[in-house]
């Protein structure tokens, strides 16, 4: 279980319904590791500040079976850096990034894919 204040997705069922039921989705798939924690922090702040109220934020433990959907997704095929952060619009992947991202970089992607 990741120690964040984000919504945790624990099963494939939860993951799929979260993607299906929300128009704009950002999921960070990682561990409690050095490059992951700053991304969770940025997401928590963006969610708290309601800067992107139309976006639903969640995290997913990289080592649970449900993470295979993201780990093996073609958009993440070449990634070798945690976390894998993936953005969905109407159920379709619109962007994926690998490794540490600042709040500014995350905001940049949210602007690019959801605004």
């Amino acid at each position, binding site marked *: 279980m990741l120690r964040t204040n984000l919504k945790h997705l624990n099963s494939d069922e939860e993951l799929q319904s979260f993607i299906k039921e929300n128009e704009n989705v950002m999921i960070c798939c990682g561990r409690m*590791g050095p490059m992951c924690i*700053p991304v969770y922090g940025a997401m928590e*702040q963006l969610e708290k500040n309601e800067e992107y109220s139309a976006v639903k934020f969640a995290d997913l433990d990289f080592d649970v079976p449900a993470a295979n959907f993201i780990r093996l997704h073609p958009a993440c095929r*070449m990634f*070798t850096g945690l976390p894998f952060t993936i953005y969905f619009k109407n159920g379709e992947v619109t962007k994926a990034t*690998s*490794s540490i991202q600042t709040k500014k970089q995350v905001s940049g992607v949210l602007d690019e894919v959801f605004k």
Partner: protein
Amino acid sequence: MSEAKRFDAIILGAGPAGLSAGIYLSRAKKSVVILDTGIAGGAPILTTEIANYPGVKDALGYELAFIMKDQATTFGCEIVDNVEISSLSLKDEQKEVVTDEGTFVAPVVIIATGGVPRTLNISGEKEFNSRGISYCATCDGDFFTGKDIVVVGGGNSALEEAVALTAYASSVTILHEFDHFQAFKSAIVDAEKNEKIQFIMDCKIESFEGDESLKGVKISDNKTGQSRVVPVTGAFIFIGYLPNSALFKDVVTLSEREEIVADEAMNTGVSGLFVAGDVRQKRYRQVTTAVADGTIAALSALEFIER
């Protein structure tokens, strides 16, 4: 435009130095805000395990960082994460920090901005970042299980992480620009006796090569100038840290390594402006030394505020 927020002290950076300073000042009933351009925790967050911090046995880096953060906020310290600093005025009696989260004013500022991993700045480094190139062995080591990789660097981090990476990789080749290592003898011995580790010394890293992902590292021999490509799918870079001092270069004295120069009370020479932690010119950079710096800077700042 919103009104400036006034405090007794502003601390720039929420790593161990900044958080220690925050703990001491807020416990002394001073109003304190810590501003961080990332998230609170600093370098320990970039460390998997910390086993040499007295009083805390085998803590994960982020756990230790979270405890420090919690301790600071418990005493009333305000922490603002992910701020973007647009301007600083640090020489006046009332110092001002302008950010996207508002303007902060205080008679005291403690600079505790730490450092960032140094990069090679060569062709392919950005392109293959997280597609073969990594700066964190504990985060990304398992992506290279059964693969041939290189580690760039010759200090303690490079050699210790190279040994750690042999748990995953088939082979680890250490590439170093000099003909000798800067690491402690024990780290060198551990690397040398590991059968999976090879060494290419006295070489220059020219570029990273590949297509969708990293396929090799082009190096040249410093003596002969002869170049070749080492075929690998992973490269880990550990070539030291750069102090986050650029914002202050016109205000304080910087060393040749761009660290902020201060006396033993953490005074920068500018009235009311103190420094602590890895951004300060010093020999040893540990969580314990950062905490010590933060404590001293806070006590000096306290004396300054109450003078």
